[in-house]
Each structure stands twice: as C-alpha cells, then as structure tokens.
C-alpha cells in the first residue's frame, strides 16, 4: 500500500503519532475550555496563557526548586489553577450577568498582561526542558519515542477521568444541573458560586497540566500559548461549544487529520483545521457535537 502511494511507512507512522500527540493537547485544552464555558458562560481566552504558565511553572519548579518533572506534573496544575481561582474571584465573577463579549475581552486582556510579564522576565527565545523519558520503543514498523507515548496515555487518562467525573458521578450531576439552572440548583441548598469558582480552577488546571506535558517536547516560551490556542479555538468551534465528549473526540480527531495532511499534502497541514472549521460553520454552525440553540 505504501509503495503504491509512494510514502515510506516510517514517515507515515511518525506523522500519525505526531498527529495523535498534537491531538492529545488539543483534547485536554478544548476540554478545559468546554468545562469552563458550560458553567460560566465565559469563553476563556486566557487558556493559552494558562497553558504557557503551566509549562513555566514546571520550568521554574525544576530550575529554582529542583522539583523533577513528575512532581511538577502534580504541582504546576495546582499552582496555575489557584491563580485561576484568584482571577475568577476578583475579576470574572463580576461579568457573568453581562454579554459573553465582556468575558472574552477581560480574558483576552489578561493574556496580554500575562504574556507581557513573562516576555519581560524570560525574553522571547524558549528554554529547553529535559525529557524525563528519553529513548523509545522499536515496534518494527516504526520507532516510538517513550515521551510521545506517555503524552498520549496521560491525556487519554485525564480526558476520560474528567468525562467520568462530569457525566457519571454525583458531583458531576450537580455541575450538569447548574449548567442548566444555576438559580434552582442553589435554591436546593448547593453553594453554586463556590462550584463556579472551583470549576474555573479545574478548567484552568487542565490547561496548566497540558503545559507541563508540553514542556519537554516544545521549548518553554512566553509565546507557546498563543501559537496553540488559535488552533484549539478552531477545534472548539468544530466540536461545538460546551460539549464535554465533543471537545475530547474532536481534539484527537483533528490532531490526526492534521498529521495525515502532513503526510499527503504538507503544504496544507497548518491550514487544514481552519478549512474544516469553515466547512463545519457553513453546514452545521452549532458544531459537530453542539446542540442547536
């Protein structure tokens, strides 16, 4: 088959893995956005900056405090999530009763502030982060780097756990109900404002987690969030805002599509997602998994 289309199988599988790895990041990031949007009705533009903060938290933990990768994987999301909670309590909270646009403007403004601060401190050139899992597996038909495999596994586990928490547990049923009727859920005795704060913190922590996960394969740089978040927003538009499962599936799927495009028509690999977005917007404006309003 590979001979027929003139592509070496090694290259094909390598691009497929790379696509899955990218998809892993798209999935975790768009999942966080979907969780936040569902309950807060806020399009969290700061998500990319929070992803970058996760990577830097890992970097700072390592270089300043000697905390290894595995410790950072736990600590960095907590730190970034906690900063998110402060943002929610002091700023976002005041915008819920207003149009979406205000939340978008505030979170976009925060991106400029946060990225500016990091650029001033660390410059624009990236910092390397050592690979905690060097080496790889020779599968016969391809060589699979250990760390890539880990990224895919970690993201699948986190996505599944989040899906399970929201769709299958009692806590998740509070969340789903509050997405529909926050006033009524509160009138049953549930502290919805606290739930909103924790949900934002959780969504942001997911971004921080993705940031640490990315640190060893991407250079840690103040601009890393800007680069990926544009694609992630396209993923969210394609999947449909607010659908948990939709965000996850669309993330992996589009990563794969991107990888395959890189094999068959490399010139289009950086635009294919946006082309799909345009088509989806034309045919199904609410997104593949979104419900029509």
């Amino acid at each position, binding site marked *: 088959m590979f001979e027929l289309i003139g592509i070496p199988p090694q290259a094909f599988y390598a691009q497929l893995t790379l696509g899955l790895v990218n998809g892993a990041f798209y999935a975790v990031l768009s999942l966080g956005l979907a969780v936040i949007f569902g309950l807060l009705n806020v399009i969290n533009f700061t998500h990319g900056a929070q992803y970058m903060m996760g990577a830097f938290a890992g970097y700072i933990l390592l270089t300043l405090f000697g905390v290894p990768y595995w410790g950072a994987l736990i600590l960095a999301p907590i730190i970034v999530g906690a900063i998110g909670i402060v943002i929610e309590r002091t700023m976002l909270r005041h915008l819920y009763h207003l149009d979406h646009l205000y939340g978008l403007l505030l979170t976009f403004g925060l991106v400029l502030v946060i990225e500016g601060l990091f650029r001033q401190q660390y410059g624009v050139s990236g910092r390397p982060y050592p690979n905690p899992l060097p080496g790889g597996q020779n599968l016969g038909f391809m060589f699979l780097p250990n760390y890539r495999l880990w990224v895919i596994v970690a993201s699948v586990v986190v996505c599944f756990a989040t899906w399970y928490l929201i769709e299958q547990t*009692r806590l998740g*049923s*509070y969340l*789903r*109900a509050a*997405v*529909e*009727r926050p*006033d*009524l*859920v*509160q*009138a*049953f*005795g*549930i*502290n*919805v404002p606290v739930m909103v704060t924790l949900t934002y913190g959780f969504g942001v922590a997911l971004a921080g987690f993705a940031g640490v996960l990315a640190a060893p394969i991407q250079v840690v740089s103040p601009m890393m969030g800007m680069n990926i978040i544009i694609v992630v927003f396209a993923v969210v538009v394609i999947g449909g805002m607010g659908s948990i499962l939709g965000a996850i599936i669309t993330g992996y799927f589009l990563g794969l599509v991107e990888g395959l495009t890189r094999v068959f028509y490399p010139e289009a690999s950086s635009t294919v997602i946006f082309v799909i977005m345009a088509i989806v917007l034309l045919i199904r404006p609410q997104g593949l998994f979104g419900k029509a309003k």
Partner: protein
Amino acid sequence: MAETGTVLKVKDLEAWYGESHILHGMSFEIPRGEVVTLLGRNGAGKTTTMRCIMGMVGKRLGSIAFEGTETIKMRSDKIARLGVGYVPEERGIFASLNVIENLELPPVIKPGGMTRDEVFDLFPRLRERRNSQGTKLSGGEQQMLAIARILRTGAKFLLLDEPTEGLAPVIVQQIGEIIRDLKAKGFTILLVEQNFHFASTVADRHYVVEHGHVVEMMRNEEIGSNMEKLQEYLGV
C-alpha cells in the same frame, strides 16, 4: 424549636424584577403544621412571593422570618439549608440528569426525609422510569418527580407552586392524599393553587393576593360563606 407558633412570617415584602415593581407590601403568616394557600389571578405575584421566600428574586425589601431567622438578605442555598423545600411552578426537571439523578440532586439537609425506596413506593411510575432522561418524562411524571425530590431532603417546610397543574384527576387525588399525609406528619406547607376546589380539600387557610399584596385572609371553614366574594377576587 417550639412545636407551636409561626413557621414563616412575611411582613411588608416588596420585590422587583429589574425596574418593574411586583410585590407591594405582602404580609402574611404561616402557623406551624398548617397548609396555607396563596390564591389570586394570573400575574398577582404568587410565584414571585415564593421566589422571594427562596431568596431567588434579586431585589427584595421588607422582612421574611423563617423559624425566627430573618432571611430577607440571605442567599438561597442558605435558606434551603434552614429546611425549606421548593417545587417551582415550571417544575425544573433537569434534561441532562436522569430520573435518579434528578431525584437525588437536592442534598439531604435534615434527618427524617424519605429514602429513595419510600419515594418510589409513593410514586411507582418514577421507579419504572428511573433511568430515563428527566425531560423525557410526561408532564405529570415530571411534576411527581419535582415533588418527590424535596421529600427526600428532610425539609419540614414546603413551597408547592401549582403542584397539580396538568395532572390527571387520579394523580391530583393522590397528591391531595400526600399533602394531607405530610400535614399529619407535621409538615408546614405553602401552596399556590389554581384548582380552588382542590385547595379547599387540603388547606387550613387561604390568603387572597391581588396586585402584589394580600387583600384577604380566610380560614378554610369560612370559604362556603364567602364564595361570592372569592369568585369575584379570582375572576372565575
């Protein structure tokens, strides 16, 4: 807590939705163990009064004392946890939750509520449909679910906003029995009812609401002699 006395005391309650002033000095009392109704035409402010008691109306003034605690400025989750259960007029069944999840959404706030099985014994229909999506139930089933879910919480003061609306007569009768049964168990209930005949079979007293305030109080046994006046108030 005293076993007698007043459970809820509303005094000079005013409420607004945005700019529109809806309640103009509502005052009424609910003695312990009684079933009390709010009667009045559409738009008189009955639902708004319940939402105020629940803390769900943004701007409210005056006084609402529940078991002696002033709640006029309290957040609605705090009010619920004092022991108030609420069945909203629109039922408020959640589409993204199945029947069991809907049933178990309101946290148990006091001991003495029903168990899941007791609730299902009371409403066997809900047991049959336990795994259905909440909004896939029929209107009547949703109404049963809305009532069932607050019987689990242990709240001893219930707000029922038109609980019989849209239900078949046999179910209405059953709800009547449940209300009388709850009263016998010592519950205190505030009821909004369009079905005046139904109200008179369960209630101890009635407050007639017009344009956002109470214009008349009648004990249930006085109803017969006041029929004409009442019909004029309600425009029936």
